């Protein structure tokens, strides 16, 4: 036990980082794929346990946490969201990925449909894209007026300050991917039938507007990085590295203490309660799924 803790270093808010992470094999181009993968799996497992501690803290303290994931298409937002939700209870941690607004929603206050998704006490909501659509895709693709855009840049910080004052912890991540890596990932999506759904005609069109997106992103970060809710940029050219870095960072910025649920000893089942008053009906009366595997 002593040697284990000696091998670990504590980060700002208590997240332990093992010595083996420095230098990280994921950052070492000479490291073998096997070494990188095994390191990734090990670290992810460790971070998952920390996430569970965070979940218990959120439940116990009735905290309200919002995490926003923004970035270009194929920047790796979905991947990190998946790794965060994987070990967590969907009743505590849920993902919000809103589609295009309905005609009715278009007439509402811009933040209304997002506000409806904000967490209650004891919940964490991960926004896979968010109200920042207005400062990114809507601006670049011309889906909003100039007036709407500037009004957004003005009101988003006000809106977020209100959220924070109401007790919400708000964290914003921008996933930064290079032009070349995005192109590679797009090609991967085109090739892979299980990933093709991720490519919309809009994504293809936005490929031609790289610079405009960059400008929109720069401006968005400048106007909306406020003390109450900071933007954090995740370098996401290497997916696995980005996932670990983002989760590790999230664990440091959301203050939490406590431990994962303690071990449970499964009590022996009382034999008298089993199979006395109950007879299973014949299997032929139930519709079984064919066992083709």
């Amino acid at each position, binding site marked *: 036990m002593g040697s284990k803790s000696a091998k670990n270093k504590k980060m700002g808010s208590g997240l332990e980082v093992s010595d083996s992470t420095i230098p990280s094999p994921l950052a070492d181009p000479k490291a073998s794929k096997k070494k990188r993968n095994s390191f990734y799996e090990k670290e992810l497992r460790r971070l998952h346990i920390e996430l569970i501690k965070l979940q218990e803290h959120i439940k116990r303290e009735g905290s309200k946490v919002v995490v926003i994931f923004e970035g270009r298409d194929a920047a790796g937002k979905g991947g990190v969201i998946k790794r965060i939700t994987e070990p967590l209870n969907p009743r505590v941690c849920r993902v919000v990925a809103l589609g295009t607004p309905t005609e009715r929603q278009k007439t509402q206050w811009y933040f209304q449909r997002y506000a409806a998704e904000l967490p209650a006490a004891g919940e964490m909501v991960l926004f896979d894209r968010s109200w920042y659509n207005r400062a990114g895709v809507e601006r670049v693709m011309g889906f909003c007026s100039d007036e709407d855009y500037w009004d957004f840049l003005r009101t988003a910080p006000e809106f977020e300050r209100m959220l924070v004052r109401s007790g919400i912890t708000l964290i914003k991540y921008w996933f930064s991917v290079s032009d070349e890596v995005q192109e590679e990932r797009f090609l991967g999506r085109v090739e892979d039938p299980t990933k093709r759904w991720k490519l919309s005609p809009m994504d293809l069109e936005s490929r031609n507007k790289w610079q405009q997106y960059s400008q929109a992103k720069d401006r968005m970060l400048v*106007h909306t990085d406020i003390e109450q809710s900071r933007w954090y940029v995740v370098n996401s050219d290497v997916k696995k590295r980005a996932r670990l870095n983002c989760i590790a960072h999230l664990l440091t910025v959301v203050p939490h203490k406590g431990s994962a649920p303690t071990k449970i000893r499964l009590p022996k089942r009382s034999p008298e309660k089993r199979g006395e008053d109950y007879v299973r009906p014949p299997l032929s009366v139930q519709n079984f799924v064919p066992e083709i595997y």
Partner: protein
Amino acid sequence: MNDRPAMFNVTIEGLQATMRSIKPGKRGYDSALKNVILRERDAIALYNQLLTQGRTLDGVYSFESLDIAKTFAFLHLKSIERQIATNLDRVQVFNG
């Protein structure tokens, strides 16, 4: 001559930021052109530089595009707004 674009001036005086567009040939165009800020990142860098040096922002700044000019004016005004919001927070939570 006429195909030259308009410039956008932002005048900062204390809490105020005033915007003005100057068309080619109009008074002030040449001086605006001389000191024009072309890129948004330069506008942001200038703003941050003035802020970190603790210097007043008072003065006239010229920009090539309306968006860049607006960003500069916004940065100034939002910073004032932020100070007021922080002050409001402190006053609101003060309970003696």
